[in-house]
């Protein structure tokens, strides 16, 4: 027994402790050196047999070694306790995540928002009006003559006169003399059902056929210059199929001031469609007719698929028909209480469904009001 043995024990035990990979191995090391028959224990046991000189020199060494091994074991034990078995921890990272779905906005809403955002950035106010509208705002105020075909039963949903005395629809009560006499045309159809006993177009109700009534509603309360857009739901009395709906969404823009002209319309339309489609779009105007604008035009945009080269989307015509527009008819300004020829403005409108169908390549207009989540969830 000598000092070298102890040094050797220290070195070997330290190595074995460090190499222990779990509590069991560590325990075995402990037994090997500090157990009842452990190597260091044996030395310690033999200390008694040594003379005092030797004891004095070996004793502290042996006890020091014991301390060293104890500390080493403790330290390693803690290390092993904090060690994580990564293999045991392993999971299948390819399993699906827990379902946590966001809902989807209707594609109509998405298109509305894009449009509203573009117009808002150009300083347009967003305004709205009722869906249940008076004949006056829907037709008369917009310069539709009493016999205009649009007032036909075929095109417009008319409302049975409301007999309930409690009803307080938000409508303008006509002053005496203001009450325009309506054509018997509309009053007599359907066995006298519609409008029986109703004399004024300010009392007769329709489901609005366009968002244009809001033009007059807005102008009654505001003075030019202004620029507004009117998003909203409109109704057409026609049977539905892949390209026809009786419930539609529309957009109306109205810009009014002292000297608004066709050039301004072309500029804003081009700005808008270029922003909406994210590429340069050209505008083309063709002559048209609407009672509430003069001059009136159809407006086409250069095909957004082929950029005017000709492709199946535009049926090789290079242009896509989008909507109607025109310079506000002075009679409409008059309906809103403005003096004739004091202001100029343009108005234009187009269908949201058509834009959504173009943008998302949707093949059937009836999807929008279907409530079918297989469709809605795609957006």
């Amino acid at each position, binding site marked *: 027994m000598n000092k070298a043995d102890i040094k050797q024990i220290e070195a070997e035990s330290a190595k074995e402790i460090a190499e222990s990979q779990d509590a069991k191995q560590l325990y075995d090391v402990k037994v090997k050196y500090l157990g009842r028959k452990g190597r260091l224990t044996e030395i310690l046991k033999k200390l008694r047999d040594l003379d005092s000189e030797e004891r004095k020199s070996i004793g502290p060494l042996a006890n020091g070694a014991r301390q060293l091994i104890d500390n080493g074991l403790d330290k390693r034990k803690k290390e092993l306790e904090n060690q994580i078995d990564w293999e045991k921890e392993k999971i299948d990272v390819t399993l699906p995540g827990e379902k946590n779905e966001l809902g989807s906005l209707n594609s109509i809403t998405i298109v509305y928002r894009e449009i509203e955002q573009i117009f808002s950035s150009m300083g347009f106010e967003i305004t709205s009006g*009722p869906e249940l509208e008076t004949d006056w705002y829907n037709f008369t105020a917009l310069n539709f003559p009493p*016999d205009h075909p649009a007032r036909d039963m075929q095109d417009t949903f008319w409302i*049975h006169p409301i007999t309930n005395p409690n009803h307080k629809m938000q409508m303008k009560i006509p002053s005496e003399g203001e009450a325009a006499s309506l054509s018997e045309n509309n009053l007599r159809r359907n066995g006298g059902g519609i409008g029986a006993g109703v004399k004024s177009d300010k009392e007769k109700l329709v489901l609005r056929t366009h968002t244009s009534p809001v033009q007059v509603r807005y102008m009654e309360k505001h003075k030019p210059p202004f620029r507004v857009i009117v998003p909203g739901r409109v109704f057409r009395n026609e049977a539905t199929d892949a390209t026809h709906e009786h419930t539609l969404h529309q957009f109306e823009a109205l810009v009014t001031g002292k000297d608004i002209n066709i050039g301004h319309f072309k500029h804003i339309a081009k700005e808008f469609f270029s922003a909406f489609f994210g590429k340069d779009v050209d505008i083309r105007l063709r002559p048209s007719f609407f009672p509430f604008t*003069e001059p009136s035009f159809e407006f086409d945009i250069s095909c957004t698929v082929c950029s005017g080269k000709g492709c199946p989307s535009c049926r090789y015509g290079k242009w896509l028909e989008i909507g109607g527009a025109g310079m506000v008819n002075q009679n409409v300004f008059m309906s809103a209480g403005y003096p004739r020829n004091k202001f100029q403005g343009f108005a234009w409108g187009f269908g949201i469904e058509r834009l959504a169908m173009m943008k998302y390549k949707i093949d059937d207009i009836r999807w929008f009001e279907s*409530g079918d989540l297989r469709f809605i969830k795609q957006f």
Partner: protein
Amino acid sequence: MKYSYNWLKELSKTKKTPEQLAQLISMRAFEFEDSKKEGTETQLEFAILPNRGHDALSHIGMAREICAIEGRKLSPELDYSQRLKLSFSQKLNIKVNERHLCPRYIGTALENIKVGASPKWMQQRLLASGVKPINNIVDITNYVMLETGQPLHAFDLERTAGNIIVRKAKKNEEIKLLDEKVYKLTANDLVIADSEKALALAGVMGGIGSAINNKTASIILESANFDAPSIRKTRMRHNINTESSHRFEREIDPNLAEIGVVRAIELIKKLGGKNVEVIALTDVYAKIIRPWKINLNTNYVNNLLGENIPVSKMKSILENLGLIVKVSGKFLNCETPTRRIDLKTQEDLIEEIGRIYGYENIKEQALCVELKTPPRNEKRIFENKLKNILTGLGFSEVMNYSFYGKDEVASFNLDESDHIEVSNPLSLDQQYLRTTLIPGIVRNATLNLKYFNDFSIFEIGDIFSAKKGEKTKLAGALMNRNQKNNPYYDLKGKLEELFRCLNLPDVEFAQPKVAGNFVHPTRTAVIKLKNTVVGYIAELNPNILRKYDLKDRLVCFELDVVEVMKTSDAFEKSYHPISKFPTVNRDISMFVDENTKYADITKEIKKTGGELIKNITLFDKYKDSLAIRIEIGSNGKTLTSSEIDTVVNKIIHALEKKLGVKVRK
């Protein structure tokens, strides 16, 4: 209208090909519809705008457009009215009873007619224009109509009583028309009659009894003008659409009747027999229409178009369209031909100048406006906020029709008298305007259950009540087949989060005194904000769901958007200082009887604990046992445990005494 290319070419002297012409007219006047070959002829079809039916539903009218577009005037020799004087000493007996329905009636009698086939060139032009050739007389009337726009009719003189009466039909008067159908007329229909019988349905179709046949030797030729709305109503009433009614219902110029008759006589004399003689002519025309004047400000023209068109260019465009124009300073004094009924205002003339000048030649111009932010549309912004929160909570947005039918009114126990009815619905299941969004939502749920086990949907849309008018509502529903818990709480939790996001802290879900019409009577709550009912949340009555073959429970809600918005706006967001002092959680478990509501318990705890109650949560519920965690603390100091005990004991005492709960100790 369908046009013959060769005919247009001859009249207008254009050198353009059919394709060039189609393109040109599309950009300057009327949309090109279709083109096809008819033998040696090319047919071009254009959609004539509703305000141009007065003059453009004719080859001469279209030729005038072509000339104007090409910067020329139509050849003056096409002005047939200059060719013949309409004065004959011999009069035909014509009586117009309805002057306002028939502003002009020219009747002329011709004899020595020889009926036969019309010449080939005429037949080809008719065919190219979509009209079937019949015999020379009928073909001439059609040819003149296609050429000038004036519908004409020829009666076999021998088969009439020799006179003409323009009168309203007698009620139920019957007439067999050229289509060989018998029509029963109303007292609002206008007929051309003789002293014995009705000969024709005025402006729409002739009667078969007086039709031209091979033996016809003398005729009465009619060139008349009829009131447009009256013609329209008659043809709609009887569902007859003819070339004639098509033109009359668009209103044509009474002066065109003269042009038509002159041209027809000329052709009949040429093609209807060697010795054709006009033996009588009567023109009943009381209120003569004369050209009118429009004073056009040339500055206004350029100001509205946004261009700098020279005055001379404006003048020539209008002259090429047939107006007589005199320059007077910055004004153009324009005399409008009577055929252009659509030209009434300066803007009407500006449109003519603009379109012939070419809209593509008008340069884009940036708007010069004051730079300012537009007013906010608070409702639109609020709706968008609702949509964002709801989609964040997993709801998808549906849109439904504004209609439903008697079935829904009955199934959902709705008040029929509150419904606004459509006079002319597309079908009976779309007869009423919706008073609630729920029937649509239930329809969506039924559909989507075929494909999904769990989903949540919402809709923002207007409802219409006869009593309260139009209102915007938000409704939604939640379906979860996989979950065993009552879906009511699932939906309620989402609504609570919605209200939290809207900054609406004090939402009350209260059991209503009377349950709604279509809800589960014991699983429904009204939603109150500041003591105002703004909507409800409920499980749908399972009996109603059964009618829609829905076996699963469906919970839904409906809120008044504007009411919620008003309350939401009233709460300004502001920071609440976070207390520096610790809070303590104390749990209380208790047995409650079935009539004690959780809302009563929390109310009592808040009342008793006052400001020290920071939060109350339900952390366990099993049968009649509830476990509640109360967070207690003070903003001013750290509470001692004896102070806390005092509060908790007070709460336990109050709960036991006032609500009869048994607290487990």
